[in-house]
């Protein structure tokens, strides 16, 4: 089948591919295809083209030395030229900076600055940050992200100091970090919480500290990233009625079923994991939302309002 990817785009990919062809290396074709986001057949076409590229006299000693055999790519000699990685283009550098910004990295963080040593001279994270923002303001912690990502890779347990808006407040837990996931700009960690004896999802911006314990654990074969972070499976459901003047959308109430009523109100059945969390959201409607059931949640909402009134 004809490949419709522009030659310029494929040329960028091929120059990046050259960087992978260190003499003596053998890589799985499937890994390379996954890395470049292409099918194996397309990658093979690129590699076959690369293997006939080079410099004069275009004999076997002056061509890109690679062979494809048994699902592997084998680089068996020195490249005839371009044997260093080409600097990141401005667009590639921006992609890195914006990606790290989603993890809580401010543009003046050491890691983006370090990475810019591999980028074109006229690139600066601060300049990117003035034109594109992928995180809402400062306050994230790349250090936390780094600790969690490394522990999840190594299969190493962590002790985390976690703050929850719910009843538990601040707690110290030992967790087995499985996977990281971004949902609407917020990063979460899915983990087995040994303290709770169950799988839990933790917001990264509420992890005050994370420290590897040195103990390892057996990871699930295919850990599922927490995206979307909210799952309603197995959660209790609250019945909440919203007044006619209150705009209600499923986007604001993940997992809820919304039933418009004849009188203009909306009856919502909302799954929830923390009653304090839901109580806050209901109280924030300042009288335009009322919990019908369960009774314990009504009590929590009332107590919260009283507490905020100073009662």
């Amino acid at each position: 089948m004809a490949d419709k990817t522009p030659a310029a785009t494929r040329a960028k990919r091929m120059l990046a591919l050259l960087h992978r062809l260190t003499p003596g290396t053998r890589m799985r074709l499937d890994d390379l295809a996954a890395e470049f986001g292409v099918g194996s057949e397309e990658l093979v076409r690129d590699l076959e083209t690369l293997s006939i590229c080079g410099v004069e006299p275009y004999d076997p000693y002056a061509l890109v030395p690679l062979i494809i055999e048994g699902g592997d790519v084998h680089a068996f000699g020195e490249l005839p030229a371009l044997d260093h990685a080409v600097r990141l283009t401005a667009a590639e550098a921006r992609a890195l900076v914006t990606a790290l910004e989603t993890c809580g990295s401010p543009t003046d963080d050491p890691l983006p600055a370090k990475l810019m040593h591999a980028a074109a001279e006229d690139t600066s994270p601060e300049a990117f940050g003035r034109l594109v923002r992928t995180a809402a303001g400062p306050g994230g912690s790349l250090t936390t992200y780094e600790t969690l990502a490394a522990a999840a890779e190594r299969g190493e347990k962590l002790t985390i100091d976690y703050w929850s808006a719910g009843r538990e407040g601040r707690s110290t837990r030992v967790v087995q970090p499985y996977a990281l996931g971004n949902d609407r700009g917020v990063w979460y960690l899915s983990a087995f919480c040994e303290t709770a004896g169950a799988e839990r999802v933790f917001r990264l911006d509420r992890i005050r500290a994370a420290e590897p314990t040195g103990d390892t654990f057996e990871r699930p074969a295919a850990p599922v990233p927490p995206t979307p972070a909210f799952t309603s499976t197995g959660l209790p459901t609250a019945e909440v009625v919203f007044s006619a003047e209150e705009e209600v959308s499923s986007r604001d109430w993940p997992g809820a079923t919304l039933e418009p009523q004849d009188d203009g109100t909306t009856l919502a059945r909302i799954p929830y994991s923390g009653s304090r969390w839901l109580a806050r959201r209901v109280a924030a409607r300042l009288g335009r939302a009322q919990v019908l059931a369960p009774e314990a949640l009504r009590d929590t909402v009332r107590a919260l309002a009283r507490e905020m009134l100073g009662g």
Partner: protein
Amino acid sequence: MRMSDALERLVNLAMYFASSTGTVTRHDVRAHVAGYPKEQDEGAFLRMFERDKDDLLAAGLVLNFEDVDGEPGYRLDRRRTYGAAVDLTAEEAATLRAVGTALVADPGYPWAEELRLALAKLMPEPVTGAAAGSAVADEDPNAQGARVAVLSTAADARKTVTFTYTTSADVTAERTVDPYGLFLRDGRWYLVGHDHERGAERTFTVSRMLDARANAAKPRSADFERPPGFDVGGYERLPFQYGTAPCEAVLRLTGEAARRAPALTGGAGVLERAADGSFIWRIQASGLQRLARWLVENGPGVELLGPAEAVALLRAGLQEVERTHG
């Protein structure tokens, strides 16, 4: 011409520049680089060479231009072409693998291809298989990602864009905008730019665009200048900052809210730390109802000190909550 011919020629040309120790001319290229048709006339060759050279510059090669006896000559600038090796800690490498794996598969993230190439150049091993996922945009992420890609390319090149836009009042019209910058907030991408019809800066929700196209005329020249000192961060708003009656709100942040103050405030307004570790936060608010709601949702430890009208509104609302749940 087959695609592989063009690719082969481009890679050969890149290698020729890289292997040449001196300055090379276009005639040197024609004589020594495989892939340029011998039967091609001079004009066609020069056009092909110029396109190839532009493609290589876009891929990251840096060429210095020198005059060789009245003819343009080219020399690869090795220092500016080759990147310095970056020594990553295990944690930094794990971070790049996780965020890379997550975002390149996220249709709402518009620079997946560029991120792949960046990681391929930086990382010693192929980046695959990290346990991470991402959904930065939740409303039609494919459309948002595709439109942001168009808008950001246009913003980079300073080309005017046109799109069909439906406002929150459900009015649909075509808009012509000079795109200045983009930001992502709570699952939605936003475009900040100069709206030609309104003659003023506006912020547009990308998910409300039905399409987006950049001005294709004169692709090498910019259509507009960005205002000096433009910073898209200045256009992000907290939920209570949308409205027409601005006033200054004063809040006190204590306990956990004080610790989270930078994240809670999003860098907006003025934060002053008190001796007891709490913060006084002065912030412009435009919707008092939304301010009161935000405060309740983001507590505990968020207290409203003023304006008095907002404090009264909050108290009345909480009293109603207490009454309806009594």
